[in-house]
């Protein structure tokens, strides 16, 4: 058998380390370093798991778990690991641009192309998407009073597909090269004629895996929200985070499909000599642009909407007040979701269509500004007549309100075809979407972690380090991206490995400083987690309600038991837990307990993950025997699963009763803490009511506060 039969196009030269030895240069050494980090990191993980004897627990408690909470946490771990990589890549690109004034800098053009491609692809598909998916996974079932999602195994499969995609993109650091075609991968540049290497194939298959995973997630969550709400939880009683999850799920169902189609068509062009998007022979790249953005524009709302849900939860909790304009916010969310499908063409106003077409899509785009603006004012009105606690999540929220409107303004600018003709493909555009995604989505996710971490792990995160992280992340963002607006207005295009205009230098230097602050802030967040783990006893909130929360997830212990709710709750209004606390219904023993049926662990998902990874790796390198074997195994696993009769296990009522009654007894015995002691070790997760008298009356605490 020949080498090629066994290894396809894989050769020793494919290893990143060979390049650095054969053609030593700064650029190759950077690649060498990155590859080494991946290899050493993987080795370190294996050693750690072996030394600590964690392989068993990892497999039993996590990888084979179908518990939505654990799946959610695993999604977020993937997001954080990938975030570190893509953030470092951003720093490397910034430093290259700083070094490349009127010279070549230290990276080759090809390496720079790979960097901006992986940065974008990772940040969207393997940071933002797993982050929001993990969060929705963790929080949404708890908020609607459900024990799990509708299809727990499918949920695990979605996770493993995303993990396989993330693994593929990590492997590309060590073996072979990545695409240089940008995260949007426009042909014909990414066609076989102009990008003959394995890079684009890595991009195609990692994105395809992620998009299939997200489609399944969307289906799963939408069904869960329709079918698994607890008794009394009408649609219009759901917390706003659930509404945004619903809208995002619907967007995922409809928007991921065009992407999957586009990447598969591009793969057919590349592997099978089709001509969907080639220059000649009837191909037309405009079809790719349409398909990609038919996904791509809803995608930005897929990312943004859950974050907007987070903001709604954070603001009403830390203001201690009902959300202002709930119905308005729901309709605004739905408006955004629907409109997001009608604006994709604004990503290519410059493709030569008629003024009528451009104007219509431009106006449609601006209309999205209406519901978004309404939301911002709704959050301000939620704070109005509230009692605002400036905690870390609130700092992120305030920063969001102020910076997001500026991003909205530049979005309206870009919606105007005449302005877009000038700033399309420029750093102005880069500044705009980072302005929406960083303060909106990324910081929204950071705020969500601060907010729900105590729910997931039973202890709060250290507040001081959280604030330190905020105070370097927020200015870091401003410094890193506001100069790019200016540069874009002065004709600086995106994706340039070098440049020659001296006037750009100070602005690029400021952007570099911003990138450094963003890195420092991220380090602070990691330190915060480390410090919090060390101080977990002082920070412990086992009683589950550290923030005087308003929705159902705060009514159960932290961390919650596998079955979430000992007895399925019954609600009769919004802010169910706040109402229960007000009426003295909280922490009451239920009339009776019954057995709970929970899904068993399954090795189906990790097996599918492993073999879709080998399938796509084999496709990238044309190792056809492995393609066939992997494909057969994946479907074999699916078929084998259909013969498994015992997929659920029964948890006896006695065990549930014992655990839950112990929790209730502890909760009743512990005095609640007021919001003044929220960040003190006295906060064990039981909140004292922070309201006296009825609205409209002059109440003792008002008088007291006036005196202060």
């Amino acid at each position, binding site marked *: 058998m020949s080498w090629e039969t066994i290894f396809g196009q894989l050769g020793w030269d494919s290893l990143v380390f060979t390049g650095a030895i054969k053609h030593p240069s700064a650029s190759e050494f950077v690649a060498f370093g990155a590859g080494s980090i991946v290899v050493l990191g993987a080795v370190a993980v294996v050693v750690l798991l072996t030394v600590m004897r964690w392989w068993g627990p990892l497999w039993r408690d996590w990888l084979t778990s179908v518990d939505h909470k654990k799946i959610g946490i695993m999604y977020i771990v993937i997001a954080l690991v990938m975030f570190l990589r893509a953030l470092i890549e951003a720093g490397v690109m910034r430093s290259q641009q700083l070094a490349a004034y009127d010279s070549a800098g230290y990276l080759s053009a090809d390496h720079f192309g790979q960097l901006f491609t992986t940065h974008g692809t990772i940040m969207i598909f393997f940071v933002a998407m797993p982050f929001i998916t993990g969060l929705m996974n963790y929080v949404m079932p708890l908020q609607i009073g459900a024990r799990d999602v509708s299809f727990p195994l499918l949920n695990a499969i979605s996770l493993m597909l995303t993990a396989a995609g993330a693994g593929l993109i990590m492997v590309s650091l060590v073996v072979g090269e990545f695409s240089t075609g940008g995260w949007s991968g426009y042909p014909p540049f990414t066609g076989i004629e102009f990008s003959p290497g394995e890079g684009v194939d890595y991009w195609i298959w990692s994105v395809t895996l992620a998009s299939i995973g997200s489609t399944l997630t969307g289906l799963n969550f939408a069904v869960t929200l329709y079918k698994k709400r607890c008794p009394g939880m009408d649609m219009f009683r759901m917390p706003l985070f659930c509404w945004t999850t619903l809208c995002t799920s619907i967007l995922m169902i409809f928007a991921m499909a065009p992407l999957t189609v586009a990447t598969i068509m591009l793969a057919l062009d590349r592997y099978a000599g089709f001509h969907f998007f080639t220059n000649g022979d009837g191909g037309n790249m405009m079809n790719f642009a349409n398909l990609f953005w038919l996904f791509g524009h809803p995608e930005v709302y897929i990312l943004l909407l859950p974050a907007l849900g987070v903001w709604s939860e954070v603001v009403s909790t830390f203001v201690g007040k009902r959300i202002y304009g709930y119905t308005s916010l729901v309709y605004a969310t739905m408006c955004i979701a629907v409109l997001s499908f009608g604006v994709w063409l604004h990503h290519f106003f410059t493709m030569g269509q008629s003024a009528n077409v451009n104007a219509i899509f431009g106006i449609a785009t601006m209309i999205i500004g209406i519901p978004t603006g309404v939301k911002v004012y709704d959050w301000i009105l939620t704070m109005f007549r509230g009692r605002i606690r400036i905690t870390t999540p609130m700092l992120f929220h305030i920063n969001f309100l102020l910076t997001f409107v500026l991003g909205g303004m530049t979005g309206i600018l870009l919606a105007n075809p005449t302005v877009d003709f000038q700033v399309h493909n420029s750093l102005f555009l880069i500044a705009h979407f980072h302005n929406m995604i960083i303060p909106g989505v990324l910081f929204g996710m950071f705020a969500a972690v601060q907010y729900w971490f105590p729910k997931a792990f039973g202890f709060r995160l250290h507040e001081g380090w959280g604030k330190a992280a905020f105070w370097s992340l927020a200015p870091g963002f401003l410094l890193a991206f506001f100069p790019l607006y200016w540069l874009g207005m002065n004709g600086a295009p995106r994706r340039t490995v070098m440049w020659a205009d001296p006037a750009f230098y100070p602005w690029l230097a*400021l952007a570099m400083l911003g990138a450094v602050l963003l890195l420092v802030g991220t380090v602070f967040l990691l330190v915060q987690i480390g410090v919090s783990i060390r101080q977990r006893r002082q920070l412990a909130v086992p009683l589950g309600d550290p923030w005087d929360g308003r929705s159902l997830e705060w009514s159960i212990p932290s961390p919650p038991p596998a079955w979430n709710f000992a007895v399925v709750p019954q609600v009769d209004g919004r802010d169910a837990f706040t109402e229960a606390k007000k009426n003295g219904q909280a922490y009451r023993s239920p009339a009776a307990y019954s057995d709970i049926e929970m899904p068993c662990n399954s090795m189906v998902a990790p097996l599918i993950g492993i073999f879709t990874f080998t399938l796509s790796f084999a496709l990238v390198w044309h190792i056809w025997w492995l393609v066939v074997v992997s494909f057969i195994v994946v479907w074999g696993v699916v078929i084998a699963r259909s013969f498994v009769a015992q997929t659920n296990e029964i948890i006896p009522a006695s065990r549930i009763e014992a655990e839950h009654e112990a929790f209730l007894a502890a909760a009743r015995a512990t005095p609640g803490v007021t919001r003044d002691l929220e960040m003190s070790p006295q906060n064990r997760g039981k909140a004292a009511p922070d309201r006296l008298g009825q609205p409209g009356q002059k109440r003792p605490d008002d008088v007291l506060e006036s005196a202060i």
Partner: protein
Amino acid sequence: MKGIITWALVVSALSLPTLAQAALPAETQVYSAGFIDAAGPVAAAQFEHFQTIISLMLIVVVPIFILVPWVLWRYRRGGRGAYRPDWDFNWGNEAVLWGVPIVLIIILSSALWAHTHKYDPYRPLGNDPLDIEVVSLDWKFLFIYPQQGIATLDYLALEQDRPIRLKLTSGTVMQSFMIPQLAGQIYTMAGMTTQLNLLADQEGEYLGRNTQYNGDGFATQSFRTAVMPKSQFDNWVIHTQKNTQTLDLATYEALLKPSIEHVPRYYGTVDAGLFNRVLARFTAGHAHADSTPAEVSQIREHHHPQNNPKGAEQ
């Protein structure tokens, strides 16, 4: 204003001694500039529209910068604001919240509609335009002046105050053609043409470039645009016509090979209909009418020779 801020930052914030030296521009260098420094009515109108939108948007942006600090101060925990935890709706607010943005978007939309039509890149800007055909290549631009029978590579001479009508296509991957100080950008795509009308009313030299990433030479794929008065332009045409180099299909095929060009080239004669033949190469059914399949595959192999050949399967 722009210069002051820039230099203030260069000198004070960074104080890199080498930079001040490096920043002294060579006399002939043309630097990037945007529509802020417009040198033609289209770019000027685009910037004006930009400013109009910003001022209209301030109607919704400014209140946020006033309200947020005020609310934060007044309703902070321990502040003087009364606590009304169940207050969550008011029809009056609602009308303003939805009403103001709706009215604003109606105004902005009508401005958008008018402006998009008025400055549609396909809309002619006057009679007797100067026609130029643009072919984007890796990593350079070819300009053909059909009326004058000349062509240039990476140099665009324009007649001041005369409408310019560009017809664009690509000999390779999709690119985006742009001279920010004169007009917006438009994509160039193989087998298809796009149009861009522009007008330059200020004599001078401006940087034009490709803004759509197309590989290793992308960062430096720019060209000098020289706007000159009619007499000077006519002289330039006559001077260029004397050039002995000819742009024919063979020359074009040599240009298809990706390269980074530092010096413009001038062609005194051009094969008639070359632009259409460039287009026809990609048309289904008529593809490569003037090349044998062997030649075509040769051209294709030439395209990106710097790429790793191990994955190259045609």
